[in-house]
């Protein structure tokens, strides 16, 4: 309305100026933008591939892309039309450290950046992520604790499984398996299936119908041995009644919390080795494979010749390496002999004690290292399939 009152006032002036009838030219107003990237600390050398910054103006939907060829001077000065932009950077970065090479995604995003003046600035934090990310073991607490009286306390062990991907994943049906073989005792198992499958006699499964237990990116679930408040019995322990699931242990040591969903015992009773001689995998069967069929088709009988020449045979299940989403080898430096997983699953191992029966191992876990943190605070954990590098050994348990 105000403009119309002004119209009356300008009408006369318009009459005087309209005679020119000039056709004014449409000029897109632009801004010189100083775009700065906050680059995460990268150890080792790296090469970049297909690294581009994309500017999407959300009013018009117009997108333009500018390549980035160097991170040593992490800034760009594009000229952009005024608008509101979603600025994203994405590309591949191959990092080589200590002879190991792995390719990550280098990403960054800043949304709703208003460019409204002739010069403006924006800052985008970059982070690394693993394109093959999935569920991972964030932490394995396998040592247990000791009471103030110095007695071993075993029921408070746990796993923390973390969604390290960019998508919501479902925990339903995940298998957690403990290796049948010890990393401290290398044998020539026959038949040798190490490069095809992981051998286990103790397997539990997370229940669910398929989409019953969603885990958002950056969220985690806790699978406790006994999901109770252990502090009531051992002041040195933790309150695990907050666990999402609990494992049904041997009846002699099992304490059931009816408020916490039990895992399904697939094979044996999971008894986590408190010196860390056994390894663990997370696996998921294909959708078209039922657990019963898998069990009937993957029974594995193996044997080995002992130092006395005696042949020992045993039974277990073989979990195809193709089904395994994460693997963590554990051992102790003093006794380590071999990896019980195929090296493509895990080419290292972590620990919570340096010697066999190390009395200082209690109350310590293996905890995965943080790789990067996204702009919205989501933590991305390192997962190079090398537990030696990916884990912090002898870490303080996060639930304590």
């Amino acid at each position: 309305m105000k403009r119309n009152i002004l119209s009356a006032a300008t009408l006369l002036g318009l009459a005087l100026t309209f005679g020119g009838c000039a056709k004014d030219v449409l000029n897109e107003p632009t801004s010189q933008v100083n775009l700065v990237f906050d680059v995460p600390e990268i150890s080792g050398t790296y090469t970049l591939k297909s690294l581009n910054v994309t500017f999407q103006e959300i009013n018009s939907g117009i997108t333009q892309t500018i390549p980035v060829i160097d991170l040593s001077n992490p800034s760009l000065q594009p000229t952009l039309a005024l608008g509101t932009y979603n600025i994203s950077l994405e590309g591949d970065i191959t990092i080589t450290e200590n002879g190991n090479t792995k390719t990550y995604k280098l990403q960054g995003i800043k949304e709703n950046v208003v460019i409204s003046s002739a010069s403006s600035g924006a800052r985008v934090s970059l982070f690394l992520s693993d394109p093959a990310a999935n569920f991972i073991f964030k932490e394995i607490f396998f040592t247990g604790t000791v009471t103030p009286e110095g007695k071993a306390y075993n029921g408070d062990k746990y796993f923390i499984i973390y969604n390290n991907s960019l998508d919501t994943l479902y925990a339903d049906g995940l298998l957690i398996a403990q290796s049948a073989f010890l990393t401290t005792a290398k044998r020539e198992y026959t038949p040798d299936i190490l490069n095809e499958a992981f051998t286990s006699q103790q397997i539990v499964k997370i229940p669910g119908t398929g989409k019953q237990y969603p885990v958002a990116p950056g969220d985690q679930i806790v699978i406790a041995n006994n999901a109770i408040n252990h502090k009531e019995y051992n002041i040195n322990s933790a309150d695990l009644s907050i666990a999402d699931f609990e494992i049904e242990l041997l009846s002699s040591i099992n304490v059931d919390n009816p408020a916490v969903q039990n895992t399904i015992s697939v094979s044996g009773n999971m008894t986590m080795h408190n010196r860390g001689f056994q390894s663990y995998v997370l696996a998921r069967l294909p959708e078209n494979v039922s657990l019963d069929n898998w069990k009937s088709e993957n029974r594995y009988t193996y044997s080995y010749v002992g130092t006395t020449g005696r042949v020992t045979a045993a039974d277990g299940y073989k979990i195809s390496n193709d089904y395994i989403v994460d693997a963590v080898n554990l051992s102790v430096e003093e006794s380590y002999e071999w990896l019980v997983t195929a090296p493509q699953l895990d080419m290292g191992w972590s620990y919570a004690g340096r010697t066999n029966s190390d009395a200082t191992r209690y109350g310590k876990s293996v905890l995965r290292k943080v790789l990067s943190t996204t702009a919205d605070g989501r933590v991305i954990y390192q997962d190079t399939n090398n537990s030696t590098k990916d884990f912090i050994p002898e870490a303080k348990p996060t639930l304590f």
Partner: protein
Amino acid sequence: MLSKKYIFLGCCISSLAGYAQDSLSVKNDVYIERHAINSVFYRETNNLSSLKLRHYSQNYTTVQFGYDQYSKKKYDWQEGSGERDLTFQSETHQILNNDLAVWGKAHFKSKQLKDIRFNENLDYNQIYPYFLADSVGGDLQMESYNFGGGLAKSLDKWVIGIEGYLTANQGYRKIDPRPLNKSTTIDLRGSVSRDVGNDYTLSLGIDYEFYKQTSRLSFVSLLGRPLIFNLNGPGVFSNLLTGMGPSGSSQALAYYENNTLRGTLIWSPKKSGVFAKGIIAQRVGDKYTNHSNESINFFTDEQFQVDLGYIKQYDTWYWKAMSTWNSRRMSGADGLFSTVSSSASGGYEKFADRSSYRYFADRYVGTLLFGTSNIWNAQVEVAYQEHQEQYISPFRNMSWSPLDISLTAQYFYQHHNNRLETTVQVAKRTIHDANYSFSNVNLASEIGHLLNNNWDYRISKPIFAEMQLQYLINLNNGKMPFVKLNAGYASEVELSKFALHVGLNF
């Protein structure tokens, strides 16, 4: 464009049939005064209220019912392929004491607008190009009410005129997508005329028009909803404002408000002499949606027109020559928005306006009328237009220059006491310098089809022919019923039109 003009002319002609006098000769004179194309031309060029004292020499009142339809096979998707109208019109013009004229009218139309796409609004010409749109569209049912009147009073050498009109439209569709549109136009006009010597009159008029439209688009079916666009240019839309509105909205809303100021200066001969006219007008408009409390578009539409002509009247013969230059400059701007978490602001916050739309048009018209007004009239008109339309982002440019040549002939036949009017018109359009560039548009998309289709329609070159027959029966009791038949056809766009009106003059 041609069809619109002739529908308008047809309505004018049909609605101005009748008078309330006693003698046959006077009735016939008034009838011709209402219908002769040179009289219509006179009223259109001398269209200020203070000049309406001279529009008619006799009183008249008319009531009529009509059925009109037209359809096109090639058409602007946003205007639709045709219309079917049922109309009721009542008008009167009374001259009191030779120094006071009063007039009034009441019109009602029930319309069905056919096959409209990418425009879920009413009143195409008021809000173009800022439609609330989807790719589905469909037929639109519409009711239109128009009331108004005015008076002109002579005070010595001065004549003062005022008039006001109210138009209310409602449009809706009862299947998805379901628009419910309501628009109101208030048009207030004032003018003053003064005799200059014995032969000329100088007139000055000021008009103000307020227009608003509220559009609500909803769906009953939860499945298969098309995207809702807020168009802000020729086939361009805001990505951010696409959709129904803030999260949880079940309706898309759009609100338009336009204000127009127009000044007119006329130098007109009482009988013969030089005619000159200047018009300057500015229309400004805003569009709001439920995405934000702030306007998402606004435009300024400026028009400047100069008419120069010469009129020569003999006893029964006349000729009129008129040249017109009409120049139009329209500029539009889009709001630039960012997302905000506050729902109080509608979900988006405007931080700047970006000048983004231009429309330039210049129209040069030469008109020659001649004839003996109570028997036959003829009109030759040549109109050359230059149009250019631009949108900045993504940049697109369209320019086209149509040349229209039309010939109209009219004959009044006396049949006993009755009168038969025959009007024939033939017109041809050619296009010069048609260029377009659409950048960054997926021409395989529905938006791309819209652009291509509408462009093809704009540069069509039809030959148009129309005939109108009107038979007026003199009942010798002051009442004169009439029947009017109108039919027309245009090539290329395959326009066919038909109208039948019956009414009573008294």
